């Protein structure tokens, strides 16, 4: 099957699964299962956002939790000011996108670890600012004044996860995607063939941040209240990174597999070993890095390719 065909097939399967997941509230499925599906989609979408910049360009971000947090705050402030829901969500995406320009326009001009350090610094800086900002409710946080039906953020998160997955798959095999990956593999050579690497990295980071902001916006409607220490916890940025790392960095399916695995494990370990789930995720990342450097999806693809190569002569003979 051609790559365009594979992308189309992945998009069709994603749309079908997304439609089934989005219909669950009306199919009599328990709220426990719906919550699990919601969180799987939440981490999937956030993982795809991280994947877009870090998986595709190799520039590692530790700010995706903070970007989602900015989206969440912007949306709650907008909705409390009686903005329509669509405008509130757009405000969240735009706020995170603009915030990404602050980091990207400066640190993405440089190569190496400057961007990673800038995102780490940004994560802490945003928490400090939000704690002091009266408009953001200070340390006490903000509460969404209107209560929305839980099916609204649920359906929106499922749709966002599906759209983000299809977008990453489509980008991966497009000309732009190939040029972004060229930056990851060798930025000097990429520049030598006419790629404006700074501009492309900033644009991709901005798109990635907008998705992260939208994830935060929808989640704000889901939870209804924002506390800065929770919203801007480093843990969220770490999970945004862990999900694609476990599933497969730079692939559309990586964050899907990673998110399902993470949410499943979290449920199990919250019962078996409460409070240890992040430690276990850390051990899992270590195992993946040691034994499956390109994640579960990458390792499975390689095993499949090896099997096909060895099967061909056998069939021929």
């Amino acid at each position, binding site marked *: 099957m051609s790559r365009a065909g594979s992308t189309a097939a992945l998009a069709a399967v994603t749309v079908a699964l997304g439609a089934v997941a989005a219909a669950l509230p009306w199919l009599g499925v328990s709220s426990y299962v719906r919550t699990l599906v919601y969180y799987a989609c939440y981490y999937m979408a956030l993982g795809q956002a991280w994947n877009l910049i870090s998986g595709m360009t190799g520039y590692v971000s530790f700010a995706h939790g903070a970007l989602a947090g900015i989206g969440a705050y912007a949306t709650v402030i907008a909705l409390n000011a009686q903005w329509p829901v669509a405008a509130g969500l757009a405000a969240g995406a735009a706020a995170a996108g603009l915030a990404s320009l602050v980091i990207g326009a400066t640190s993405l001009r440089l190569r190496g670890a400057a961007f990673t350090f800038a995102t780490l610094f940004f994560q802490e800086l945003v928490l400090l600012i939000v704690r002091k900002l009266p408009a953001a409710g200070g340390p006490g946080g903000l509460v969404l004044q209107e209560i929305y039906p839980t099916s609204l953020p649920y359906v929106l998160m499922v749709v966002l996860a599906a759209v983000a997955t299809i977008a990453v798959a489509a980008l991966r095999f497009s*000309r732009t995607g*190939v*040029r972004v*990956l*060229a930056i*990851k*593999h*060798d930025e*000097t*050579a*990429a*520049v*030598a*063939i*006419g*790629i*404006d*690497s700074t501009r492309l990295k900033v644009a991709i980071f901005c798109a990635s941040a907008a998705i992260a902001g939208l994830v935060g916006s929808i989640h704000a409607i889901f939870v209804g209240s924002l506390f800065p220490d929770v919203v801007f916890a480093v843990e969220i940025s770490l999970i945004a990174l862990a999900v694609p790392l476990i599933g497969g960095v730079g692939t559309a399916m990586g964050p899907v597999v990673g998110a399902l695995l993470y949410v499943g494990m979290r449920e199990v370990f919250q019962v078996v070993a409460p409070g240890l789930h992040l430690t276990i995720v850390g051990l899992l990342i270590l195992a993946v890095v040691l034994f499956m450097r390109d994640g579960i999806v990458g390792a499975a693809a390689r095993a499949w390719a090896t099997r096909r190569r060895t099967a061909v002569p056998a069939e021929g003979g």
Partner: protein
Amino acid sequence: MALVEARAIEKRFSGVVAVKDVDLLVAEGELLGLFGPNGAGKTTMFNIIAGAVRPTAGAVRFRGVDITAVPAFRRARMGIGRTFQVVRPFRGLTVMENLMAAVPSAAARDGRPADLAALLRGVGLEKRANDPAAALTLGMLKRLEVARALALSPQLLLLDEPLAGLSDRECADMLQFVATVRRSITIVMVEHNVHLALPICDRAVVMDAGSIIAEGTPGEIRKNPAVIRAYLGEDAA
């Protein structure tokens, strides 16, 4: 008008003069060989034309336009393609994707994008189109890098040590390919292996200690006492 006109070029690296007061003209359609022993300044001069290094003094013009301060990516878009001494393929991408990455956007160019399949056939890699670049041998990677530079549809192709690390057979293949390509494009080739590379050049420039010591046809270069001295020592001249 010369395709490339570099005037009074000087480059210092922390006080060390790598290139001093060099004038280099490249005529449209020619294959210019840039030769010299280690530390001669030829690679620095090459990188100054490619935009990877900015000169301390002097100016570089391409088609009459001053490109001294133009960044490398923009020079590539203007029509300057290059290869690297140590190959720099996009190892995780397929051979075809390596070429796809270099094709200019339709908006950036008036002409049709290069025929990538024909380019791969030209360098003998058509059967490896869907293999990752990481799976290729050094000789194949060198050819892939030339094809990638050609995918830009450049007016000037800069070849940095295209024969380095290749076997005799691979050198012969590469030189044959360069000889084919030169019919439609201007080439500047930096090469250590003067004996192999000089015969296919229209003109050659020899540098030593940051300055040009000789220039002329291959025949003139072979007989030039300054060149013989630079390569073989004082006694040989």
